[in-house]
Every structure is written in structure tokens, then in C-alpha cells.
């Protein structure tokens, strides 16, 4: 293969047909930017959902008179449950410390005794199992209920479940959007490539008459499509990254910092996945351009 010749042909025709090139680059740019936005938003939601799920925790308040033996027995029983990820003991003192942090020295200083009960924080592996696990604690002898209620066991069931449901719905929507935008991107790009090849169908015809093999004709077009796709996709990736970065910075310095947005990596970060915005989109753009050229050329290379 005469790589030098094909590359020179591709670059030459990119330069000559620069209006078409611009159109194709902008098309790829817009398509990959939209795809990139979907990717970034999706991974942010994913992260939000995961952190939310990790925070699904059952608080079990225990009676002051619980003996260390009873505690130990309870702990080992809970740890034996397959649904449980982690159990943490919060002593009366720690509870008071937390209370003090939230409400200030003045209130706690005036307390004659520590009225706060000790508790266990039980983390479950799957947020959906929180009900089943919590139900097992209601009748534990060490649990301190206000008489007539079950308030010794508490968890944010409703809220968490609703939020998770919403995130799940949005994620599904995002996947739908990804599929839709990918299809739109492929159509847009292939139309642009087809237009630019249609404008040069006479050239293709002449090349065939001079005895060029189909691949001899194809390679420059493939390179051309690849380069066009690559430039557009790199532009798209960079702008998505810039937008993501700016948004994260803005959020961190604002009152919304609890949102803890995720900065999608621009480059591969060694962990294998994600590949990073730039490499994945650039590869995608280049491949789309090359394949688009091949498909568009097909009808001029018959017989």
C-alpha cells in the first residue's frame, strides 16, 4: 500500500474541498458533543445513584442497659446476615458529639446527663433490601422503642427509594437518548460524506477508467473520512470536557457543592474503563468518518 500517496491524496482533497470538509467536521463536532454530554451526564447520575445507595443505612437505637455480651451477640448476628455490608457502633458519647456539632455547645452544656441513646448504623448492600433487614430488628430485645411504636429502628425508606427510582428513570432515558443521538449522528455524517463524494463521482469514474482498483480509489477517501471525523470528534470531546470542568468548578464554589459532580476524565486513567472522553470520542468519530466514506463510495464502485 502506498501510504504516502494515499495520505497526500486525502490531505490534498480535504484542502481543495474545504467547504465540504468544514461541513463534515462541524457535523461530527455537534454529534460527538451531544454524545459526550450524554456520556458525562450519565456517568454523573450513575455516581450519584451509587453514593446514594451506599448511604442507605438503618439506625438501630439500643437501650442504655444493654450489656456488652448482648451487644456482641447482636453484632455477630447482624454480620451473619448476607444483605448487610457493614455495621457501625455509635456510642452515647459519639452521639452527643454529633449532636453538639449540629446544634452547638450551648444546648449540650446545660444537659445534666447524656440523654442520647447509643445506636448501630447498619449499611445494606442493596437499597431494595432495606425493608427486609430493618424488619428483623423490630423485635430485638436490646432495641429501645418508645412504648407503642417501632421508632427504635429508623431508615429513610421512602425518600431514598423515590430518588433512586427517579435516577433509574433518568438513566434509562439517557440510554434512549444515546441510541437516538448515535443514530442521528451516523445519519448526519453519512449524508455529509455522501454529498461530498457525489460531488466527486466523475473523479471516481475517471480513476476506474484509468485502471485503478477499488481499494486504490477507496483508501484516500477512507483517510479523508477518518481525518474529518477525528478533527470533529476531538473538538467535540474538548468542548464537552471544558463544559464539564467549568460546571464542576462553578458548583464547587457555590452553595450547591453537596452535589459533588464528577469530572469525567479527558484521558485514559489507567483503570481500563472509562477510556476517557478524548480517546473514546476520537476513535468513534474517526471510525464513523471512515465507515461513512466506505458506505458512500459503494454505489460508485460497482462492477
Amino acid at each position, binding site marked *: 500500500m502506498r501510504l504516502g500517496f494515499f495520505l497526500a491524496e486525502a490531505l*490534498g482533497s480535504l484542502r481543495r474541498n474545504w467547504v465540504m470538509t468544514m461541513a463534515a467536521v462541524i457535523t461530527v463536532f455537534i454529534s460527538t458533543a451531544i454524545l459526550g454530554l450524554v456520556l458525562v451526564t450519565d456517568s454523573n447520575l450513575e455516581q450519584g445513584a451509587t453514593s446514594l445507595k451506599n448511604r442507605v443505612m438503618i439506625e438501630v437505637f439500643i437501650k442504655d442497659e444493654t450489656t456488652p455480651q448482648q451487644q456482641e451477640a447482636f453484632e455477630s448476628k447482624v454480620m451473619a446476615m448476607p444483605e448487610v455490608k457493614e455495621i457501625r457502633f455509635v456510642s452515647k458519647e459519639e452521639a452527643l458529639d454529633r449532636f453538639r456539632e449540629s446544634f452547638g455547645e450551648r444546648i449540650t452544656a446545660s444537659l445534666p446527663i447524656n440523654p442520647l441513646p447509643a445506636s448501630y448504623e447498619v449499611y445494606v448492600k442493596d437499597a431494595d433490601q432495606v425493608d427486609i433487614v430493618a424488619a428483623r430488628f423490630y423485635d430485638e430485645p436490646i432495641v429501645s422503642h418508645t412504648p407503642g411504636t417501632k421508632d427504635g429502628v429508623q431508615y429513610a425508606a421512602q425518600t431514598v427509594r423515590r430518588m433512586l427510582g427517579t435516577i433509574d428513570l433518568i438513566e434509562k432515558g439517557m440510554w434512549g437518548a444515546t441510541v437516538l443521538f448515535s443514530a442521528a449522528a451516523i445519519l448526519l455524517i453519512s449524508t455529509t460524506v455522501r454529498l461530498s463524494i457525489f460531488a466527486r463521482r*466523475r473523479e471516481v469514474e*475517471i480513476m476506474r*477508467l484509468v*485502471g485503478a482498483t477499488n481499494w*486504490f480509489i477507496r483508501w484516500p477517501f477512507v483517510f479523508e473520512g477518518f481525518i474529518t471525523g477525528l478533527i470533529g470528534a476531538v473538538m467535540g470531546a474538548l468542548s464537552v470536557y471544558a463544559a464539564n470542568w467549568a460546571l464542576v468548578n462553578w458548583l464547587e464554589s457555590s452553595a450547591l457543592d453537596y452535589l459533588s459532580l464528577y469530572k469525567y476524565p479527558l484521558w485514559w486513567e489507567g483503570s481500563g474503563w472509562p477510556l476517557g472522553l478524548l480517546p473514546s470520542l476520537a476513535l468513534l468519530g474517526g471510525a464513523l468518518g471512515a465507515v461513512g466514506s466506505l458506505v458512500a463510495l459503494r454505489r460508485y464502485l460497482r*462492477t
Partner: protein
Amino acid sequence: MIVFENVTKIYDPDVVGLQDFTCHIGKGEFVFLVGASGSGKSTLIKLVLKELEPGEGRLLVAGRNLGTLPRRKVPLLRRNIGCVFQDFKLLPNKTVYENVAYALEVVGEPRRSIRRKVPEILNLVGLGDKTNSLPHEISGGEQQRVSVARAFVNHPPLLLADEPTGNIDPETAVGIMQLLVRINRTGTTVLIATHDREMVNRMRRRVLQLDTGRLVRDERRGSYDQFPDEPEEGI
């Protein structure tokens, strides 16, 4: 070089391209193909290039049977056939030099020999000073000389020309025809489809006349019209 045996080509639905055409064109011959528009000249040329799928009958070009020639071998066939067209068919974005060089790139000629051969052939056709011009910057006659140079730079055994002088003025046409004769002298078979009565009459070469796809005349040293001495019917 070219053997037609009862070749018939019918276009859909039933337009006759060639009808039961039988003819041998030997190596090194110089042949004119004449006939009115629609008589089948272009069909014949397209068949030889395998631009059209052959119909019935047998067609051999340079020993290859085009009926059984697989599609992927078509480029190889075309590299052995130089082609000159009425509309020149030059690549519009390439310079004169690049247009001629393309025919050599296609066959995988080394860069060094391309740099030697292209100026050589351009000097031969008298365009040594236009190598860096684009096709639209030069005259029709010059463009046709570029296309002759491109057709011949590979020294193909066969050269086809479809109305090579159709789009250029008579004086320039003589120059083009002289070029084709010179090429013929190197041993290349030349087949020219033409309407150029004066040219055919002046050259007195083998003439094949077609009429609605049939061969109606094959003369060794023929003229454009069958009976050149008879006065033409009133115009």
C-alpha cells in the same frame, strides 16, 4: 488484439447496441470506427473496456475472454488499454503532471520512474511547459493532448479513442491525430471512433462502419463514406 465473435448487446428493453458483430483487429493496426450517432460505436468501446457487461457472443481483448473475466480483474484489463475521450476526462483538481502520473501510480510504478516518465511523455505531446497547469487553465486541444499522454504513458498494447477530435478545432485535431499515428508506430493497436469525415478520408486506414449495431463495411484503406465519389445528397 481484439476479437469479436457474433457479439450482440441489447439494452433494456430492446434497444440494439451491437448486433451479431464479428470482427478481428490485429496487433499494431490503426482502425477507424465510423457510423451515425447511435450506430453502436460507443457500445463497442464500452464493451472492450468492460464498462458494459458483455451480451451474447465472444469478445477477446489481448487474449482475455471478457465474458469470463472476473470483476476484480477489470482494473488489470484497463491498465492495458489507454483511453482517450471526447470530453478528455481529466481529474479537474490535479495538475497536468499529476493527471498523467496518476495512471502510473495506479499500476504501482516506483516514484523514481514516475518522475522520469511523466516529463518525457509530456514533452512528446508538446506540453513540457504546462506541467503545473490545471486542466481548466489550458485549451481543449491541450487537454486532449494530456489525455493522450495519460493513455500512452504506460505504453499499453491497445489504445481506444472515442471521438478524440470531437471537441477541438480542425487544426488542433490534426495534431492529435498525428500523435495517435506516432503512438501506433510504436506497435500499439489504435482504435478510433469518430465522426471526423475529413480526417478519415485523409488518412486512408482501415475503416469499420456500423449501422444500428451491425457491421456494414470493413475496408482496408477506406474512406468515411461508402462511395466517396458520389455526391452527397442534398443537405
